[in-house]
């Protein structure tokens, strides 16, 4: 019975986190874009516009969810839930603070990369079932995109796995107690980090790799026909996905909830320890999220063939060589 209660509490917390993260991230995106575009952004609803996304959610809730004629009704309605469930499953192994992890699975990062491949299914489903040519083209694009970028994302994760010698997320974090991998690992880890950021930006369909929805080409791509709450679910899943991949980035390269320590500066290190571990975790994650948003509001979009060229001609060969380098570093113990 206690186990059951635990399940219920964990589930409720997850859903709550989901909703809050969605609201916060959408607001953050709008504010970041506004300041980069010399605008003010939302500033009417609530203090400094803080309740704007809540108002938008209420609007989306009250809107009619249309299903276009000729659509495969069952699959059309299923797609947003697949997107949502896939994302929700990803929350399980993420440690939000020291010892605050829902499920310390021994194959943590492998689990993440496995379950995140569900996202592509939801996009393919949505694109196909909408009976819309834009959606179909968007789905085709994102299929090709996600399947290829999973490779280099996986390889850059493997780089850290090689250094740590474990797939478990808690082990990976524990291995960074004396310094984050981004500082300990020299150039190869930096290369892995850059590849990782590029690959996950592509995997989450964010600009400059937002070809699946490319608004100037395909109006809205795979979710052209979605409206109301069904659209909101896609939207939410996209933002939570960003949070999750950034959390993984923070765990792999920035030590998750590990505070920042410098060698033997005992005083400094102690001060750093006073900052709660959850602050460290969310700080790092949100920094990475900001970087990804920064990309979006700076760069033009790539074309589909350039996108695949980038992966197959640049990222994949580089990260393959990089894995070899990392192995060398790990075997010879060159890292600190």
């Amino acid at each position, binding site marked *: 019975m206690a186990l059951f209660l635990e399940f219920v509490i964990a589930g409720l917390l997850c859903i709550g986190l989901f909703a809050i993260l969605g609201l916060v991230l959408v607001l953050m995106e709008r504010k970041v874009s506004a300041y980069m575009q010399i605008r003010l952004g939302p500033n009417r609803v609530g203090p400094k516009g803080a309740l704007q996304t809540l108002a938008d959610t209420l609007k989306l809730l009250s809107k009619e969810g249309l299903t276009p004629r000729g659509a*495969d009704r069952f699959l059309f309605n299923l797609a947003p839930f697949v997107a949502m469930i896939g994302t929700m499953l990803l929350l399980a192994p993420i440690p939000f603070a020291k010892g605050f992890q829902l499920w310390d699975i021994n194959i943590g990062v492998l689990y993440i990369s496995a379950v995140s491949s569900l996202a592509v299914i939801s996009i393919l489903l949505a694109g196909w079932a909408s009976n819309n040519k834009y959606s179909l*083209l968007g789905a085709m694009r994102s299929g090709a995109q996600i399947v290829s970028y999973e490779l280099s994302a996986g390889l850059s994760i493997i780089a850290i796995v090689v250094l740590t010698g474990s797939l478990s997320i808690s082990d990976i974090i524990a291995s960074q107690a004396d310094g984050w991998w981004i500082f300990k690992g020299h150039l190869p880890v930096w290369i892995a980090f850059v590849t990782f950021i590029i690959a996950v930006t592509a995997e989450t369909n964010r600009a400059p790799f937002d070809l699946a929805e490319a608004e100037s080409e395909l109006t809205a791509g795979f979710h052209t026909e979605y409206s109301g709450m069904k659209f909101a679910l896609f939207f939410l899943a996209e933002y939570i996905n960003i949070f999750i991949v950034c959390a993984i980035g923070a765990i792999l390269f920035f030590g998750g909830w590990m505070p920042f320590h410098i060698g033997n500066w005992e005083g400094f290190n102690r001060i750093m320890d006073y900052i709660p571990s959850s602050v460290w975790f969310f700080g790092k994650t949100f920094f990475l999220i900001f970087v990804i948003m920064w990309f979006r509001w700076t760069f033009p979009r*790539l074309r589909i063939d*350039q996108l695949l060229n980038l992966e197959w001609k640049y990222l994949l060969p580089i990260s393959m060589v990089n894995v070899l380098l990392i192995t060398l570093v790990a075997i010879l113990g060159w890292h600190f």
Partner: protein
Amino acid sequence: MLEEIGKTEEGDLIINIGPQHPSTHGVLHLVITLNGETVKKVEPHLGYIHRSIEKMSESLSYRQFIYATSRMDYLSSHINNHGCALCVEQGLEVEIPERAQVIRVLMGELTRIASHVLWWGALAMDVGAITPFFHAFRERELLNDLMEETCGARLTMNYMVPGGVMFDLHPNFQRRVHEFISMFKSKIGEYDELVTNNAIFINRMKGVGYISREDAISYGCSGPVARASGVSCDIRKLYPYDIYGKVQLEEVLDDGGDCYARYIVRMKEMQQSLSVIEQLIDNIPSGDHMAKTKAVLKLPKGEYYSRVETARGEFGVYIVSEGKMTPYRIKYRSPGFSNLSAIDHMARGQKIGDLVAIMGSLDLVIPDIDR
């Protein structure tokens, strides 16, 4: 599911871009035939905002019809009005005071910068970068403000009238233009940082939408589109009107023929316009801003044609007069229409993303095409 009307016999996908589509900048309807992502054919369908301005003008007097041309190419409304005024003046055979000529050229060049700045932002948005659009509007707002002060309107000016300009310059005009020039010069470097030198942008533009010199001529392209293919067609140089014969102006030519060449030509044209403004702004001759004309204008029986260089290319006004108060027939030669006709040639064999880039590089203003 898609078999109803969406396919050709060879199994290619037919897809509608527009009439309502984010990248058509208005209600342009393109029917494109796709093989996968590759464009096989582009068919523009026009007429969604046809307002028969030419026919309407036949019932308006020679003072009245000019206002309607602001609503054709609304981004170069000054220059459109200028062309009409020139055509009427050609028939009236009036001498325009030099001050009016200088004001007209100044306004025309400011309009060109305002139009190109907007195009720059819109092109960046077409290829997926949204931020430059807002930065472009910062500069454009300054121009709009200073034009509003003199002309009384921000978009549809109706400032040029047969015989000169409607009002004299506002006393603040020179100061504000100087302010704009210094501001614009400090910001133009940002344009390069954000877009011009961006590797993704260059990749999206280079080698895309190529049109050769011969093809550009045979499609009747004009303006930056033709000049990017090496066709010398700047009306300001070839058939100088008003004060253009006396100012230093370089015709910007490029032989790339692709989207990137068109981009570079327009960027350089902004610099040229800026230099024309700098030459004129401190040397505005004093005098009247309008020649004396009769209260009711009547053109002698005959045919009149005048052309000006708008931000998009050659704009021609053709008037047939029967000697009455209203023209017998008016025909406008709008640059956008001819430039659009080349889109099929440019986009064949390219990707959908390229089609959007090509549309952006043509700088289409749909009311200019439909009239």
